[in-house]
């Protein structure tokens, strides 16, 4: 945490923030008006990166980290793999202008209505605003005594508001099994079941030696970093989500640079889908264990008879356990979702 991490240093750099904010709006407009959908996906990825910078500038490093991994990284891959199976061009059709104008008016009215609340807001950066002075200080003042976790974001995420995180993991799990149920086609019935129009692959993955060797070289480092992010989330930005997404992305990178089959040889469909459920189960089971030890649901403090250390260290270890659960679910969900989208639900070949 040297000088480099200071958010607003002595030099006035607010112009930089304003520039970024304007660029974000510009990128949003471009992403939505561009004709080529592949281009739109790429511009949208750039938009997400720009957002990361803004959030990091406001001290939200964990959020920026997640957005970089999820919004700019995996989301873009999802859009690209969808387009791989469909087609990237969109033909603009005439007409419908009246409807678009009508929606425009509605949206503008909504915007003016939102802006009408502007004078009522606490000023930007006010340290005494209700948000900064009511509940939040408790976390900053007590995280060390409660759980010995210096990263306040981690302790709030997994402990004080751990229930939200359990449900958030469930959301990822639901998305994974929902996409599986929507996309997966029975191989035996594939020919007869429903007529499908599959566009010919537009971007031949080909045999690029450089891409293959580079990604083969990079993957171990990515995975090592991801494990560090999960395990060191107590002390530095990161945690189960970010680490899980990076782990998932490392395998997705392999799948893209080699072949989907390459990935499926190591991780079968069944293993993947079982592990997705296993992460949520681990999280929920830790909560249940707390209940059986006499505490409230997710009160890791009561795990001290089975985890090393006193109540506060038991909390710290409990947080690590649930973060691992989150990491497992997120990692395998991302892979399973990618395989479904990229192979059109056939689990054989694809992007």
């Amino acid at each position: 945490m040297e000088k480099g991490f200071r958010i607003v240093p002595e030099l006035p750099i607010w112009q930089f923030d304003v520039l970024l904010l304007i660029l974000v709006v510009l990128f949003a407009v471009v992403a939505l008006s561009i004709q080529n959908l592949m281009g739109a996906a790429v511009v949208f990825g750039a938009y997400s990166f720009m957002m990361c910078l803004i959030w990091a500038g406001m001290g939200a490093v964990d959020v920026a980290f997640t957005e970089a991994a999820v919004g700019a990284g995996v989301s873009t891959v999802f859009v690209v793999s969808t387009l791989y199976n469909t087609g990237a061009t969109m033909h603009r059709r005439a007409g419908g202008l009246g409807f678009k104008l009508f929606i425009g008016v509605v949206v503008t009215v909504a915007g003016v209505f939102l802006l009408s609340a502007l004078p009522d807001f606490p000023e930007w950066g006010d340290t005494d605003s209700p948000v900064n002075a009511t509940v939040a200080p408790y976390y900053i003042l007590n995280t060390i005594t409660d759980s010995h976790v210096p990263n306040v974001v981690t302790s709030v995420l997994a402990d004080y508001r751990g229930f939200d995180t359990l449900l958030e993991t469930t959301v990822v799990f639901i998305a994974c099994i929902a996409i599986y149920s929507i996309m997966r086609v029975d191989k035996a019935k594939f020919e007869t079941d429903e007529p499908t129009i599959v566009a010919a692959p537009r971007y031949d993955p080909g045999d690029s030696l450089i891409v293959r060797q580079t990604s083969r070289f990079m993957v171990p480092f990515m995975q090592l970093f991801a494990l560090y992010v999960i395990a060191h989330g107590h002390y530095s930005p990161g945690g189960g989500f970010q680490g899980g997404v990076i782990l998932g992305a490392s395998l997705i990178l392999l799948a893209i640079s080699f072949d989907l089959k390459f990935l499926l040889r190591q991780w079968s469909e069944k293993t993947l889908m079982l592990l997705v459920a296993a992460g949520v189960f681990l999280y929920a089971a830790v909560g249940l264990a707390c209940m059986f030890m006499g505490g409230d649901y997710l009160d890791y403090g009561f795990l001290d008879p089975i985890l090393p250390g006193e109540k506060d260290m038991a909390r710290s270890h409990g947080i690590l356990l649930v973060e691992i659960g989150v990491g497992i679910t997120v990692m395998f969900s991302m892979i399973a979702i990618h395989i479904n989208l990229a192979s059109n639900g056939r689990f054989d070949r694809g992007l």
Partner: protein
Amino acid sequence: MTEHLPIIIILGPLLGAVLAAFTAWFRPKLSHPLVFVGLAISFAAALKLVFIVADAGAQKYWLGGWGTKQGHGVVGIQITVDHLNTLLLAAVSGIALLTTLYTKRLVDAELARRQRYFYALFSLLVTGLLGITITGDIFNLYVFMEIAALSSYALIAYGRGRAYMAAFNYLIMGTMGACLYLLGVGFVFAKTGTLNIDDVSAIIPELGQSQALFVGFVLILLGAWAKMAFFPFHGWLPNSYAYAPTASTALLAPLATKVSVYAMLRIMVTVYSIDYIIHSPATQSLVLYLSSIAIVAASFFSLTQTNLKKLAAYFVLSEIGYMVGGAWLANKPGLTGAMVHVVADAAMTSALFMAIGCIVYRLGQAQLDDLKGVFFKMPVTMAAFVVTMAALIGVPPTCGFFSKWYLIQGAAQAGVWHFVAALLLSSLVKAIILFRIIEIGYNRVPHPAIEGNPAIPRNEAPLSMLIPTVAMALGLIALGLVTSTLVNTIISKALPAALTP
């Protein structure tokens, strides 16, 4: 153990779903019983809590033991069971339990080999709905909303074909609703600094007149309306419910929209006080007009439908108008009516879609013209159907009569006659549709005894579907008989104290 009951309501279906996702790969047959057991545990806990709440008042539970801290308010997440939500919790878990029994045969018939994750998603949807009902934290409510929403997109998409587009439209509208809700929560959070419902409701009166709070209120309401398919946002609902598999609709239609109505009631009554509505008469009368339009338009469209499932979907839309209107009357009978109707309508819609499911199971589809002779073919199912329609029309002693009575009383007391007219018109339209179905089902075939035709063979739906259907229809009458007890012991205590009697 009693103190853990609130969380057990959520954990039952959640763990049931996760375990079902495991067994789906080893023993697919185990998924259904696992989900059933999870929901049964949840229902038992919810039922027990109804009595506890009636005796001892609201029960609160803090996740991770993070309760109120001096000077900061509640720092964790709180779940609450009080007079406002306890009945709905029991209704949601009970209806879900019966629906689980009911859907087994339908799923085997409709989805056959694609049902691997159906029960897991089914159970997760119930988790989300129960969570929206039980939570005492406005952000946690958003997360539960998304859990319910994502699983329902998948359940609708199981219908394939046109269901994909219907599910996509629902996804866009649903996400828009959730985002508006979240933005509204942001506005409330910016002014109050806390997310706990009790703490927010204690702080809001201190802030006085605040434009940010008002904008937040409107955003939250718009979000809830998009989720419940209230009038300007209703477009996604009929197609979604009509093209989804009957098994999904049997769970979605009775519960999903009702729970969103509850969320609106919770925000109106507990988070913001009811004075907020009484003091802005312009908004109030606008919403009342919208409710009347919703009822009348939905009734009109239901007359033009030829598909039984779509027709029932328009009934759902008109009932939403009842509840929103009743809540916005903001007087004692109106609010009572809305609260009773949330539970009553969940039961009525469930019975309706169960009966329709039985018909679809035997006839293969549900066009009105296919119903010829159905009264001879499936007399028990049709008896349940007629009882349900009677409840929807509002014939005493079914539960539909009592809730409607409260609503009309409330509207008359507030002098909102267009709402009274809309309520009566909607009953009339439902009666017309019932008689039309009776006419098709009884009379459009030559009577076997008269013309010497071979008798139409009786061919009821299987017992595993028929028993829940009949039980639900009988439940409507039972619910009607206990309505006054429920109102006196539970619902009257959920009304805000500020209301004049």
